[in-house]
């Protein structure tokens, strides 16, 4: 016998996760177009690793396997991680990162719904700390690269670190715009001058800005589908923009402007896909604003003053720690109660 309410107007966790994956597709297409199809290999590697490790862990924890494999959350984690890593990262880096995300950050904390930290960002942070050199080695967008790698060349590189004869690492890689900006600023160049370098495009990094735009598109789809609410993207982007704009206004020589920060690095991915993870984020509307604004500010701080070029992962993890506190202090007024 059923219990009230007898009817349900909800989707399911699987549908939500599926829509998130769908919303990532424009970004992936743009990615392939700009950086080549090697990213598809990373996505596949991460997906398989995530599903297998999730199944094994569920088995070890004596949980039903199928319902949890089908919920799609492992795939979302895998895709986010794969998209956050450098496109031609070696295969083991992807596997290790995914294992960390799924086994440690998710399953050991109790599986779906229980992880206090964003699993993909844990995976990313662990890799960044352990393998900083590889993690900051980004291939140049195809349009800028001195040598073009075909799909098979990219596969060879991912699995064997082998490049075709006559092609050096320099020919295919370049500093990311965030990285480039940082090192050039250290060399006492001004922002306007640095901006003349070929790695920069109209809004952010050349090529990269197109991928970022595609993420934005996917994010708008998630908003329209009500998979995410407006609070997190808006607060994150506004905070990041405000920080960069204010400092750029005060000292335009040493601080890049708002557009650059919004359209570089993982900003858009974070705004719509990473910071919006419900499980490791706060639940109250006000809490979401505080949380996302915190990530925005921290991201800017780490990018500007920290040791790493992009700050999204650490910013998210730091704010994850604050979630219980944020939730506790942002409880909305209950009907019929004073504040």
């Amino acid at each position, binding site marked *: 016998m059923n219990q009230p*309410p*007898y*009817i349900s107007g909800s989707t399911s*966790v699987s549908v939500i996760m599926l829509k998130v994956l769908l919303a990532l597709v424009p970004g992936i297409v743009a990615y392939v177009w700009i950086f080549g199809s090697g990213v598809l290999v990373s996505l596949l590697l991460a997906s398989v690793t995530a599903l297998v490790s999730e199944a094994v862990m569920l088995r070890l924890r004596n949980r039903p396997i199928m*319902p949890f494999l089908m919920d799609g959350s492992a795939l979302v984690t895998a895709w986010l991680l794969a998209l956050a890593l450098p496109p031609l990262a070696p295969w083991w880096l992807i596997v290790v990162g995914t294992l960390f995300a799924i086994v440690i950050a998710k399953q050991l904390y109790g599986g779906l*719904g229980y992880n206090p930290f964003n699993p993909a960002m844990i995976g990313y942070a662990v890799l960044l700390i352990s393998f900083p050199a590889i993690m900051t080695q980004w291939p140049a967008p195809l349009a800028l690269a001195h040598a073009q790698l075909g799909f098979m060349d990219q596969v060879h590189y991912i699995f064997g670190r082998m490049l075709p004869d006559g092609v050096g690492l320099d020919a295919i890689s370049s500093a990311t715009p965030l990285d480039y900006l940082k090192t050039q600023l250290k060399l006492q160049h001004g922002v306007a001058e640095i901006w003349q370098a070929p790695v920069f495009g109209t809004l952010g990094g050349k090529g990269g800005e197109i991928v970022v735009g595609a993420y934005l598109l996917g994010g708008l789809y998630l908003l329209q589908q009500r998979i995410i609410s407006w609070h997190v993207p808006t607060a994150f982007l506004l905070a990041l923009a405000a920080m960069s704009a204010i400092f750029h206004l005060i000292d335009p020589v040493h601080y890049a402007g708002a557009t650059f920060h919004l359209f570089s690095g993982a900003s858009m991915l974070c705004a719509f896909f990473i910071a919006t993870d419900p499980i490791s984020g706060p639940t109250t509307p006000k809490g979401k604003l505080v949380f996302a604004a915190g990530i925005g500010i921290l991201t800017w701080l780490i990018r500007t003053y920290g040791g790493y070029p992009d700050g999204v992962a650490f910013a998210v993890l730091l704010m994850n720690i604050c979630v219980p506190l944020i939730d506790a202090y942002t409880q909305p007024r209950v*009907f*019929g109660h004073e504040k």
Partner: protein
Amino acid sequence: MISKLFKFHGGVHPPENKLESTSEPIRSFPIPPRLVLPLRQHVGNLPKIRVQAGDHVLKGQLLAEAEGSVSAAVHAPTSGVIVSIEEQPIPHPSGLPDVCILLQPDGEDRWLERKTIDWRHADRRMLVASLRDSGVVGMGGAAFPTQIKLRPSGESGIHVLIINGAECEPYITCDDMLMRERADEIVKGIEVVQYLLGAERCIVGIEDNKPYAASSMREACSRSATAIEVEVVPTLYPSGDARRLIHLLTGIEVPSDKRSTDVGVQVFNVATVMAVYRYFEHGEPAISRIVTVAGNVRNPGNFEVPFGTPIDNLLEAAGGVLPDTNDLIMGGPMMGFSLPSPQVSVTKATNCIIAGAPKMFPEPPPAMPCIRCARCADACPANLQPQELYWFSKSDNFEKARDYHLFDCIECGCCSYVCPSHIPLVQYYRYAKSEILVADKAKQAADLARERNEFRLARIEREKQERAAKHAQKAAGAKTETAGDDDAKKAAIAAAMERARAQKAEVAPQNTTDLPPAVQNEIAEIDARRAEATQEKQES
């Protein structure tokens, strides 16, 4: 007259499914061969039985009389013979049987002589008191005795009377049909109730999915000498919840720890005010009501049903259930409950019977963990954080659940309705609430026992002291010379006795066991008021 509406937080839009039961006018059907009248069709004390097996009774005759302050009378819905008085299953979520009067109709449907009351020229107090014998209770489903809601309350009195015609639950259309067909009687009922309460303003709230009801109510109100506002509110479940409706129509948020009457507002369902009117104007006590029969039946619709009619007979009148029926729900699909059997009968609280089938109400998929998506919080009309309440209830962290205002939850089911993890959230809240209430009761009992024990110890001590005192007195009589020594002792004894008395005085008022009946009644009344407060919250 368009005045401002005040939106409440949350709410959901379940499919309405109201068309199928509104295609035909309200129907009636032959009186069934047997009526089973539960004594408890209302909230409050069990009424006192006034008949015995074998008695012949007339339609409208009093079968059981209201007992204590919160109680409602039960009348014979038709003439016939009392077959027996025994325990029978009743329509209650608990599925437990309760005392019922079994009546075998004689087919004549002969009325007792009806005494009408000229309410326009009678004393209000007297009118309200006379409602005690009317058997009228809240017909919106809460079944709270109406005469209590009409008693003068609060210092400031009632200023706004709200008539609930929102009927926000899917499938249910009994109020809709009543407003369409009997608007004039409802409006007369409103006039009576408004007069009894002395309310300056009256607003009828109707959801905008009932345009016919709204226009027929508007017409009827325009014929009335009193100014009654008819307000159409957006269709949004649970706008029919009393507190939500009050807020919607007046902007007043009834404080959580108060009743609506404390802020000068009282709410009645459309069918209830009509029943009040029929009692005064025609001398007819509450013996029947309109019930929607919907869902998996051949011929859904609304029926005028005598109380005590077995659900079986009612379903038959609706053409019978279709073969794949696997559930019978009383109330709506959001807050209703499954009936223990089709043999239970229609009571004053029965607004709707839905025959359910797997295709209508599929088994929910297995619950997944909460993903903290906060969809439930967005949907909660009380602006609670259902995901936190769920977490606290699940981990038996009841104190926290209470801190997060578990008792403001109206069990509307909006949260469960939207939860993508299909967690039966309302069941967790019910569990937590009942656990807390049980614990509170146990604590009260323990406190009482402790106090009694302390009292007993104090008494023993006092008696010992008194004996010692007597002893000392005797001794003092014998040896008068050593009085100085004894004075100190006496003072000590007197102090001890004083202490004991003080202790006794402190304990006594809370000791409710051997109190005179008057005091016990008072306590019962307080309990009843408390019950009323919680009940009113649930009225929708």
